[in-house]
């Protein structure tokens, strides 16, 4: 598609002008000389997570909201069917607030901090690691499998996934395939 090629060229010419500073180059190169410290950090991390147990809280879609002044009342359905109501500050106008094509408002990550508080009220849902052969998978709610084999080799990994079209999550796994910690946070929600 011609227009897409033109857009690529426009985008590439723009970002070709963006460079890391010489100071950053020097700092990053110098990190190699500090490997003794890094090894120590890594060993401590293994020790810290050795007795870890899986305990993850995640929540399902926000299904309704009602705006009242600067506050939004969110009604959230938990995986066990229980509903929880939460009042959050309305997103700021501009970049924190985005409209989808059908006009549905989206709370972007910049304002989802308040929504993260919901984890205290959510029922526990499992997220586990599964090993198959040499592969390691993060399995959320028994259905969503993420291949983290490569990322997890260093004893920790983090990433994002979309549980459904309305919620976007961040995960962090530390430890080993046998003894690990998993945390999951909601970082973005589409209100329906």
């Amino acid at each position, binding site marked *: 598609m011609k227009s897409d090629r033109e857009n690529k060229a*426009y985008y590439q010419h723009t970002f070709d002008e963006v460079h890391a500073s010489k100071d950053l180059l020097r700092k990053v190169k110098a990190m*190699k000389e500090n490997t003794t410290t890094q090894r120590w950090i890594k060993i401590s991390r293994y020790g810290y997570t050795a007795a870890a147990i899986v305990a993850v809280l995640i929540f399902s879609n926000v299904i309704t909201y009602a705006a009242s002044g600067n506050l939004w009342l969110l009604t959230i359905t938990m995986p066990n069917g229980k509903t929880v109501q939460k009042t959050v500050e309305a997103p700021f106008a501009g970049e924190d607030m985005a409209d989808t094509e059908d006009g549905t408002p989206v709370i972007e990550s910049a304002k989802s901090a308040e929504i993260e508080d919901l984890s205290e009220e959510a029922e526990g849902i499992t997220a586990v690691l599964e090993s198959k052969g040499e592969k390691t998978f993060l399995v959320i709610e028994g259905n969503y499998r993420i291949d983290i084999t490569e990322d997890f080799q*260093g004893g920790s990994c*983090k990433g994002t*996934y979309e549980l459904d079209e309305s919620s976007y999550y961040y995960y962090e796994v530390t430890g080993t395939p046998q003894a690990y910690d998993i945390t999951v946070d909601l970082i973005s929600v589409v209100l329906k």
Partner: protein
Amino acid sequence: MENTDYEKTVERYLDIVYRVALSCCKNPYDAEDVVQTVFLKLLEYKGNFQEQEHLRRWLIRVTVNESHSLWRTFQRRKVIPLEELAFEPSFSTEEHSELFYAVSCLPIKYREVVHLYYYEEYSIKEIAVLLHLSETAIQTRLMRARKKLKQQLKEAWK
């Protein structure tokens, strides 16, 4: 990784990692933090990279993940210094400056997809694998991002 290999890798990929980080974080201070974390993880990484493309994808994925990690930090979302919000590199043309600004106004989940598609030239399928998302999700994000860029940039964005 040997010293010489590491230095060559840094020289070859520093700008790539920095651009991805800047696209996600929007300000150079966070982007530089992310870059350092990414290369620290490379030093800690025990696996082998069969080829340069494998290394490149690994670096990009870790950069995106680290950027998300920083972005979700509570303080980052509560307090952002004005000078960081106002950051913009100096560009040779007004058009480039406008595109950078328009991209920085997109939500993070659109920015990362746009950058990987338009700059790194990954296909939708490849981005889906990199970000652990469905191809449909990537297509939707690209479509919405294009629409927003078109709204903001008018004729400059085809």
